[in-house]
């Protein structure tokens, strides 16, 4: 009896005992096909989900785009009373808070990555790394509460008055640091965002820096470089592409972060030159206003269009980040 007849024959025709029979029976072959199909379908589902998200946001926001045209993205007016909506304020708030957050967290993350890969005694590296990663596991709403109840009052009492007194008299730059000190606002939001993306970026940086071949680092030490020089002239340049990618991933997270921002950004639909002023981001605007909008209203369409804009921005940033990270870590 050949394998083929065994596989094609009825159940009883396969005379091998034990698992061998079921392995080659026609039922086994059918199971195999069904199983592969289930795996395939699950994989496709991932594509379907993101496709559906994109389509829903696009068509959901279409009425707003039709009503206001592309001026929707530049207009700074957001007025539910006269039913006029523009994304300008939120786009500005989203970009400014995220870029400021990067400004704070990139040097800090690189520093901690330097500490974790070169400075810290080897037995302490793993526990500290894990502790830093636990920072990333804390839900964002906790950062929001902590930011609102603990950080914002400190900013209002101590940090912002000092910065305002010290810097607001300067020409031009002074506008950026103009008062009053409210505690909440763009600046505090950026700090909280920086803290939230810091652990994530740090662990990505560490991963990149650990992939630098020991030989080239040793070569640099061999010609007399200090630890810091090896880090800045060998390790970082070697992992440059992936480090930029990891930074973009951090930016992607900051752009879409919602709950923490909703607590501390101040939620004011206007643009101010001062970084201490209240503002709004796309996500905070959605969190605070969406449940008050009626299905089918222009307000809801505008909010969905905001969501679509956030989706497109995040998608582009994440796509670029992934391209940069993968090309280095796998290449």
């Amino acid at each position, binding site marked *: 009896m050949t394998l083929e007849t065994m596989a094609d024959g009825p159940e009883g025709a396969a005379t091998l005992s034990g698992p061998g029979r079921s392995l080659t029976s026609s039922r086994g072959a059918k199971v195999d096909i069904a199983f592969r199909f289930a795996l395939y379908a699950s994989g496709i589902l991932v594509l379907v989900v993101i496709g559906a998200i994109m389509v829903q946001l696009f068509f959901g926001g279409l009425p707003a785009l039709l009503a206001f045209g592309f001026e929707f993205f530049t207009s700074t007016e957001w007025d539910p009373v006269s039913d006029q909506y523009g994304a300008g304020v939120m786009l500005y708030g989203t970009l400014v808070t995220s870029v400021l957050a990067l400004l704070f967290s990139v040097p800090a993350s690189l520093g901690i990555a330097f500490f974790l890969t070169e400075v810290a005694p080897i037995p302490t590296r793993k526990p500290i790394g894990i502790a830093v990663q636990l920072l990333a596991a804390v839900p964002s709403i906790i950062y929001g509460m902590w930011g609102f109840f603990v950080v914002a009052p400190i900013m209002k009492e101590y940090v912002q008055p000092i910065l305002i007194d010290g810097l607001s008299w300067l020409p031009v730059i002074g506008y950026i640091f103009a008062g009053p000190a409210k505690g909440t606002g763009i600046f505090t939001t950026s700090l909280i965002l920086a803290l939230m993306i810091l652990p994530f970026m740090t662990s990505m940086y560490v991963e990149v820096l650990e992939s630098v071949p020991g030989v080239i680092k040793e070569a640099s030490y061999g010609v007399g470089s200090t630890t810091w020089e090896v880090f800045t002239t060998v390790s970082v340049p070697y992992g440059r592409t992936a480090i930029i990618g990891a930074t973009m991933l951090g930016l992607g997270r900051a752009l879409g972060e919602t709950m923490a921002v909703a607590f501390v950004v101040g939620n004011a639909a206007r643009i101010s030159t001062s970084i201490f002023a209240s503002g709004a981001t796309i*996500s905070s605007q959605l969190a605070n206003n*969406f449940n008050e909008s009626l299905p089918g209203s222009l307000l809801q369409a505008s909010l969905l269009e905001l969501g679509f804009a956030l989706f497109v921005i995040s998608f582009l940033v994440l796509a670029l980040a992934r391209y940069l990270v993968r090309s280095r870590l796998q290449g």
Partner: protein
Amino acid sequence: MSRYKRRLFTDNLMQVVATGLAVIALALLAWILVTLFAKGFHSLSVNTFTQPMDAPAGSSGLANAIVGSLIMVALATVVAAPIGVMAGTYLSEIGGNTKLANSIRFINDVLLSAPSILIGLFVYNIAVKPFHGFSGIAGVMALGIVILPVVVRATEDMLRLVPGSLREAAFALGAPQWKVITDVMWRAARAGIVTGMLLALARAAGETAPLIFSSSGAQAWTFNLTKQMSNLPVTIYQYAQEPAQDKVDLAWAGALIITLGVLLLNISSRAVLAGTGRK
């Protein structure tokens, strides 16, 4: 200062700065935890875990929100984790480097980092608006979409760590692919896959943004998945903005519960992985 001394000085300075930054990061983590304990612990009581939010003032707790969260997170895991494991298995065992597999991988990474509030908007559009109301089912869908990409990624990564010789040995015995995958591959990668699920669960348990527009919240006990469903994150979000101090206190108590739960899940998932001797 000589050039040599200056270089040494820079090196020492930067090492100190880097150490300082790490200390600050750890101190901030400690600060958050201390704040949570300081503000949340004293408002924890038996009532917190036994009484619903709409119980008479003074004795109200968070029991309905805790149970609602547990129900939704559990259901979301039950629905999304198997799909995630299968999709991850597809990527590792069947898809390989084909165009389709690479685009699924790419899309999954995007979904992994995509703003979770957009998931909330999406679920609102497909499951809340058509049925004219928030529902637990919508909440489960939203959390499921949060969980899915985490499990897909973990499964693929863990299956790739299984030595190829194990897979080949199973095939050489004549086992069909489904047997190789279920009996050999999944078994070998079990600890890693479970870790991925725990991490996904931890992430879903703390997610607030996807729930605001899907399940929303409720004051009373809720067991009907077709109605608004109470849950911990949305409760914290709403109560933290209340002027009444007892509600803010409850929000802190909820924040403490959720953070401890999430950190515990994270630490235990690491323990699961460490237990198998892999890093």
